[in-house]
Structure formats: structure tokens, C-alpha cells
């Protein structure tokens, strides 16, 4: 057994050491695998980043109430009377003054200009109150100041500032007949709220002719994740045609919006992987053919065919893994941390950052390994069956 292992080891070392002799073929195989892995990881990093942004947005101790069937904040409408009824539901945390802890908010869409393309895009504008600030974790004013309630001032998320033109601090923007001034920049630790403009709820109601209606109610839960009390109330009161979910549940569904990208990324890279596999097979068959005499010589002096098999297989895996690591590094250095914006489920832009997590890195390495394994197996099989006579014939 140990003799077998030492034989395999000898052949592996010999093959790997002779790689430079087949430099160009080997480089081609490495390169093909690197490209496939880089493409796969880039797609996965994109979707992962989007998912992380949205799942980081929702909080488990906040419930979100929308009109039944509206599916997104944008399509929802909730009258003031419904807001009042819901606020008496059991399970709602109390503020310091004993009042129920909730925030009725508006969510409308205004035009912004995307820096990367120069075209107009949908930016969400949230009508909010001070309670809405207290309700959310991690909200802080990064620059400037908070808007003064009752004035047409607004503050912008850092993502907006980063990706879109027209909302710089001090800038005046005109929506309809009203002029708004940007007085502050807020940050929410990278969540999707940073893609929004925030202004006083009453002012937004006036501007968009919403009377005294809202679009969502954010409710601080007395017990994280427990929305049973609110659910029961909506169920029993026929005036309430509403849906309730935890905020984390709501955003988790929205994060699935780029699921299609993951599927697309996998399909494309598997198809490309087949092309790379053809390259790997080509390389390895050539490698076996060029070393046929050596392999046969080893067999003639008593090496087993198993060692010839593993020698070739390992050579192929080594090449692919080198390619995989290079591809992953390329993807990491170009894609990880890249910030961009896309249309989210609410029909508005969501700013997010590509995230290449170790988990995804693993996927890339597995892909490379698969190509190396299959690309090495068949040529290795051939190597194992090189007849000893070849050693004495000189060429194959």
C-alpha cells in the first residue's frame, strides 16, 4: 500500500514538475477555468450583495402593515382611521410616554438621474416622522442636519448621494410646484433605506394629494417576531383589509428579486464550463500523448498503472485549481465592493454592493474542481492503459 502511494507520489511530482514543458497548453487550460470561475462568482456576488442589502434592511422587532394584496409599499394605501384602529392592537411596544410605538409612512416615487448612465430613474421618497427614526436601528445623520417638520426640507440616504445626481447637500429640487432643499445626509449601515429620500410625512401628503392617508404602518413589536396580535385584529375587523408581516420577512421576499440572476449565472457558467472542459480534456490528452514514452517506461520498470492514472488526474486537478483560484481572485478584486443600483421589487432603485463571501468562493472552487476531475479522468484512463511496448517504440 505504501509502495503504491509512493509510486503515485513520484508520478504526480514528475508530472507537475514537467508542466513548464507543456507551458502553453497548460496555461490555456488554467486560463479557461479562471474565466469560467470569474464569471460565475461575479454573478453570485451580485445577487448575494443585493440579498444582503435587503435582508439587512428588515428588522425582526418591527412589523409592517400594507393594504391587502398590494405586495409592495408603493402600491399600498392605508387611511388614517385604519392606522388608528391598528395602533390599538395587542403586542405593540409602548413608547416612553405610554403611547403605542408605531410610524405611519408614505412611499412615493420621484425622478433622479443615475450617474452611471445619465438616464432618469425611480427614487423612493419616504414621508416619515421622528418616531420613524426611533423605530429603525442604526439611523444616523452623517452630514448636515435632520429636516424640520412642517417644512419642505428633505434628507437623502448615502446610497442616493453615491449613485444618483441632483441630491447633493444644499441642492434645491422641484417636485410639482414645491421646492425642496436637501439639508442632510443619513446613513443606515448599508441597508436599502439608504437608497431613499426622507421628508416630513405631512408635507409629502400635501404634495402628492394623499389627504390624510398613508401607505404603510411600521410597528415596534413588544416581542420580536410576534405579530399574532395584529394579525388577529386584522382578521376580526372587517374594516381592515390589510396584510401584516415582520419587516425582515417583507424584505427577505424582496431580496429574492435577483434570484433569476443566480440561475442565469449558473446556467451560463456551466455552459461555459463545458467549453473549458473541452479545453482541459484537450490539454490532458496532449499531455498524456507527449509523455506516453515516459509513462510506458515507468510501467516497464515496475510502476503500476494506478500511479499513471493518478499522476494524470492530479495534474489536471492542479491546473484547474490554479485556474479557479486565479478566477476567484480576479472576481474578488474587480467585483467585490462594487456599488451599483438596480430596480427593486418596489419599482424603485435599490443601491447595493457586490459581496463575494467565502461561501461563494467555495462554489467557484468546486466548479474548478469539477472541470479538473472530469477533464483529467478520461485522459488518466488512457494513460493507465498505455502499453509497455510504447516505451521501446519511441513515439505514439
Amino acid at each position: 500500500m505504501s509502495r503504491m502511494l509512493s509510486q503515485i507520489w513520484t508520478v504526480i511530482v514528475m508530472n507537475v514538475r514537467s508542466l513548464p514543458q507543456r507551458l502553453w497548453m497548460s496555461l490555456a487550460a488554467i486560463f479557461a477555468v479562471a474565466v469560467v470561475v470569474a464569471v460565475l462568482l461575479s454573478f453570485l456576488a451580485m445577487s448575494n450583495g443585493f440579498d444582503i442589502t435587503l435582508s439587512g434592511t428588515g428588522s425582526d422587532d418591527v412589523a409592517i402593515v400594507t393594504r391587502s394584496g398590494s405586495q409592495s409599499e408603493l402600491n399600498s394605501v392605508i387611511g388614517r382611521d385604519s392606522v388608528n384602529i391598528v395602533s390599538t392592537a395587542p403586542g405593540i411596544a409602548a413608547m416612553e410616554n405610554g403611547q403605542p410605538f408605531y410610524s405611519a409612512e408614505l412611499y412615493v416615487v420621484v425622478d433622479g438621474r443615475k450617474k452611471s448612465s445619465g438616464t432618469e430613474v425611480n427614487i423612493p421618497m419616504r414621508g416619515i416622522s421622528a418616531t420613524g427614526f426611533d423605530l429603525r436601528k442604526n439611523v444616523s445623520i452623517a452630514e448636515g442636519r435632520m429636516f424640520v417638520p412642517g417644512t419642505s426640507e428633505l434628507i437623502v440616504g448615502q446610497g442616493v448621494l453615491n449613485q444618483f445626481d441632483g441630491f447633493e447637500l444644499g441642492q434645491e429640487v422641484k417636485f410639482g410646484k414645491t421646492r425642496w432643499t436637501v439639508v442632510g445626509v443619513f446613513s443606515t449601515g448599508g441597508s436599502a433605506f439608504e437608497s431613499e429620500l426622507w421628508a416630513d410625512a405631512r408635507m409629502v401628503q400635501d404634495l402628492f394629494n394623499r389627504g390624510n392617508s398613508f401607505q404603510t404602518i411600521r410597528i415596534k413589536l413588544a416581542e420580536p417576531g410576534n405579530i399574532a396580535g395584529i394579525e388577529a385584529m386584522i382578521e376580526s375587523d372587517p374594516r381592515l383589509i390589510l396584510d401584516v408581516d415582520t419587516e425582515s420577512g417583507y424584505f427577505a421576499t424582496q431580496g429574492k428579486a435577483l434570484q433569476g440572476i443566480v440561475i442565469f449565472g449558473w446556467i451560463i457558467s456551466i455552459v461555459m464550463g463545458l467549453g473549458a472542459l473541452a479545453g482541459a480534456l484537450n490539454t490532458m490528452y496532449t499531455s498524456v500523448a507527449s509523455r506516453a514514452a515516459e509513462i510506458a517506461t515507468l510501467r516497464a520498470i515496475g510502476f503500476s498503472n494506478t500511479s499513471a492514472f493518478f499522476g494524470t488526474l492530479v495534474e489536471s486537478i492542479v491546473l484547474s485549481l490554479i485556474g479557479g483560484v486565479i478566477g476567484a481572485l480576479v472576481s474578488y478584486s474587480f467585483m467585490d465592493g462594487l456599488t451599483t443600483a438596480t430596480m427593486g421589487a418596489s419599482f424603485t432603485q435599490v443601491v447595493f454592493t457586490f459581496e463575494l463571501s467565502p461561501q461563494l468562493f467555495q462554489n467557484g472552487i468546486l466548479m474548478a474542481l469539477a472541470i479538473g476531475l472530469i477533464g483529467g479522468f478520461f485522459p488518466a484512463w488512457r494513460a493507465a492503459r498505455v502499453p509497455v511496448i510504447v516505451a521501446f517504440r519511441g513515439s505514439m
Partner: protein
Amino acid sequence: MKDFYLIFKNLTRKPLRLFLTMFATFVAFLIYGTLTSFQVAIDSGVDLAADDRLIAVNKINFTQPLPISYVNRVKGLDNITDVTHLNWFGGYYQDPQNFMAMFAVDEQTFLTVYNEIVLSPDERQAWLNSRQGLIAGESIAKQHGWSVGDRIPISSNIFSKVDGSSSWEFDVIGIYTGTDAQTDTTSVYFHYDYFNETQSFGRDFIGFMGVRTTDPKLNEAVIKSIDDLFANTPYETETVPEKVFNKAFIEQIGNLSLILGSVVFAAFFIILVIVGNSMVLSIRERTAEIGVLKTLGFKSRRIFFMVLAESLLLALAGGMLGLLATNLTVAAFNQAPIQLPVLVVTNGIVGEATLIMVALGLVTGILPAINALRLNIITALSRQ
């Protein structure tokens, strides 16, 4: 002819290598063909947009409404053939995931402004006469299995009826096709009156207007006259050519052409390396033979072109098979019950692909061909 026989024999002398190299080329062109047809389908919204059609939306954002009274005021302006209005309904069939592009429209003017929509005269008349009738595009009708005469419930995720429910009853009156193979047939249109009278909020508002001008050259003037008309009102408008509107809409998703382009580029880069390498290798293996050919009196030039022809043939064979497979893939996508634009492998795609094949063949063949051209008989024969 004799040369061709030699080239063919050279190509097929190592069937396995031939197969693998061709397969890599095949894969790259399959990716190229499929992704480019996606790209063409995405761009068709821009390419097929009528030059003389303008879209007037609320200046704040196109999701904000406009008063219906605007339609008649725009109609009164100069250089306009017709004006229609559309309202996004947020409709879905059975499952909220089955959302679709569904608009409440003014039927009469809609059919003149959007004249790429093809309905039989009977269906057209029937639709104009039926209050609850809708017309559905061929592709969405196929997806949901609707046929003319069906009565179907459609829900809205935005609007609700006066009675609180958000489900409307419709009669499928017509299935429309387009004047172009790539005209969008995934949309559904129904009567604005039916919508306006039954829904519970924001009555007498519309989503946006479609305006046809008498001449695309007058677009700029018409745009100015519309936007000036409503300047400094609570509902200012922003009017743009349909092309511009559609392009901006696609850009909202992101730079799709950059993503698709990079993938195609990566795929080609892979085969360039694989095919190039295997060409160099197979010519190097034949060094002695080329020496023999030269000894027999084959001109260097002739050998040069034979090698080049071999690599061209290799690229064309693999690439053409890839395009063939693209046709099958695209047909499968078009049959699949998923909401996708109609994919067409256009002549443009085939032409461009052929050019790329030729370029690939030349690039991968040129180096070995030059080597063969320069090869000295003595070195060739002594290099065993």
C-alpha cells in the same frame, strides 16, 4: 480540390481533438447567439418605438398620475395626429407572481396611436362595443391559456373596487399580434371607462399620454408646447420621444448590455485561447510533413493558405453548429411558459457571428500558418 482533400484529412486526423476544439467553439457561439438574441429583444423596445410617438408623463415621476382633462387640452395643440391615454393597472392573474403589463386605455384612440397592434376587424369592433372586454397579446394569452370568449377574473395590486374587492371580471374579446415579429405581445389592454367607474380611488386620473405627431421633425416643437401648456401647475408634464422613454426604462434595471457583452466576451476569450493553442500544436506536430510537402514542390504560399483554410474551416464548422443550436434554444425559450420577450435570431446576429468565426479562424490560424510558411525544409526534416 486536391488541397481541400489534404486540408480535410489534416483536420480529421485526430478526431478526438477535432471534436473537443469544435465543441469549445460550438459552446461559445451558442452563448453568443442566445445572449445576443436576448439583447436584440431587449433593445427592440427602443428599436421598434415609433419615431413620431411621444410619451407625456408626470414630471415628478411616471408613476404619478395626470388629470384626464389633459388629454383634450393636448388634442387642441398643433401638429398632433392623435392623443391617447393609458393607466397602469398592476394586474395579475390568479397568482400575485403572475403580474403582467396591463393598462386601462381609451380604446378608440389607443388603436390609432399604437397602430402596431393587429386585431381582426371583427375583434376590433367587438372590443369597441364591449364594456368589460379586454384584448391580450398572443404571448400572454398563450402563457395563461386564454382564448376568445373566456371570462376571466384579474386582480390588481394597486386598485380596489368600490366594494373593497380587488378582482375584476373581464371578457377576452381579442388576441392581438404585432406588425413586427418582435412587437411586444405580453400586454393586456381594457377599457378605461370600465376601470374608472368601478375603482375606488383617484377617479378621473390617468397614468400617461401617448401622442402621435404629424412629423417626427416636429417632435421637439410639440414636446415644448405640451410641457409649456402645463408648466407651473400641480401636475407638470415631461414629454419625451417613446424611444427615449423606453431606453431610460431599461436602464433602470442596470447596464444589461454591459453584463451580456462581458459574458460573451469572456466566452470568446476562452475559445480563442483553446482553439489557438490546439492549432499551434497540431501544426507543430506536422512539422516534418510540411517539410515533405515543401520537398515535393508545394509552394510556401500554398501551404500557408492550406493552414489558414484549416483553421477557418474549424472555426466555421464549430460556429455554425453553435448557431444551429442557438435556433433550437431560442425556439425552446419562445415555447416555454415564462414571460420573456420574443427571441429572434436575426440576420444581423447570423452575419455578425459569421464575421466573428472568420476572424477567429484567421487569428488562430495566422501564427501556425506563418510558421509553416517560414519553415525551412532542412530544419523541418531534421527536427525529429
